[in-house]
């Protein structure tokens, strides 16, 4: 990669890092992760999610009560104030990032975000 392009990518990253939305999100994420209750609620939800999706991928039919149990766990996690704060902050970050992505796309005429993710999905 040419040095000018590398520098420009770093500049965008640094500018995003300094954006209020990102600062707020990083702080909220740290707080949610360091709170035992919030962290365990989320870890438990993710663990159940992984078990259920693995079983589904293996062709197993999940019972209604298992699905309901998962939704209850998810609701419990998502209603924790620290997780709510973090998720709300992430929504703000997505707004800022989407704007930045659109600006790059406008210069190219092709969807930069889709191309970057296409490579990740290879």
């Amino acid at each position: 990669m040419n040095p000018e392009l590398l520098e420009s990518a770093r500049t965008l990253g640094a500018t995003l890092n300094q954006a209020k939305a990102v600062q707020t999100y990083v702080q909220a994420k740290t707080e949610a992760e360091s709170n035992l209750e919030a962290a365990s609620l989320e870890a438990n939800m993710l663990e159940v999610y992984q078990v259920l999706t693995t079983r589904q991928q293996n062709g197993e039919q999940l019972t209604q009560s298992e699905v309901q149990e998962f939704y209850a766990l998810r609701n419990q996690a998502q209603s924790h104030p620290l997780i709510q704060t973090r998720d709300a902050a992430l929504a703000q970050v997505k707004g800022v990032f989407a704007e930045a992505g659109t600006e790059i796309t406008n210069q190219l005429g092709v969807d930069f975000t889709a191309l970057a993710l296409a490579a990740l999905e290879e």
Partner: protein
Amino acid sequence: MSTPSTKIDLPILSMTGDAKVIQAAQSLGKLLAETPEYQTFLQALKDINHDLEVQKLSAKIREHDNALQWGRGDALEHQSDMKILQAQMESLPLVQTYHTSEQIFVRLCREIDEIVSETAGVEFAPNARKSGCGCGG
């Protein structure tokens, strides 16, 4: 009688955080558009869009696709014909060149995304992707 002072809202002259982000993104986009990887990809894209053979095959594929969508004719036959036409399309040197140039440009986009994400401290592309469903997800 004293005249009440009129408050005039002046535009904010200093650049806000978001304006800086937009400017940085525009600069990156401009530089990216100047790279040989992008120029080659763009040329390959133009070449396939202007190629008569590609246009002919695309039109035939669309015809079968439309027929499938509207439930006209034999679905299996349409699918089989589409498969053959798509294979013919993929075998064209111009289309192969396009795919190669796309992969090279995609790799560059991925590298850029990794740098932006690392410096920002938050993953860039997955969070910059616009949700297509409007469900906030």
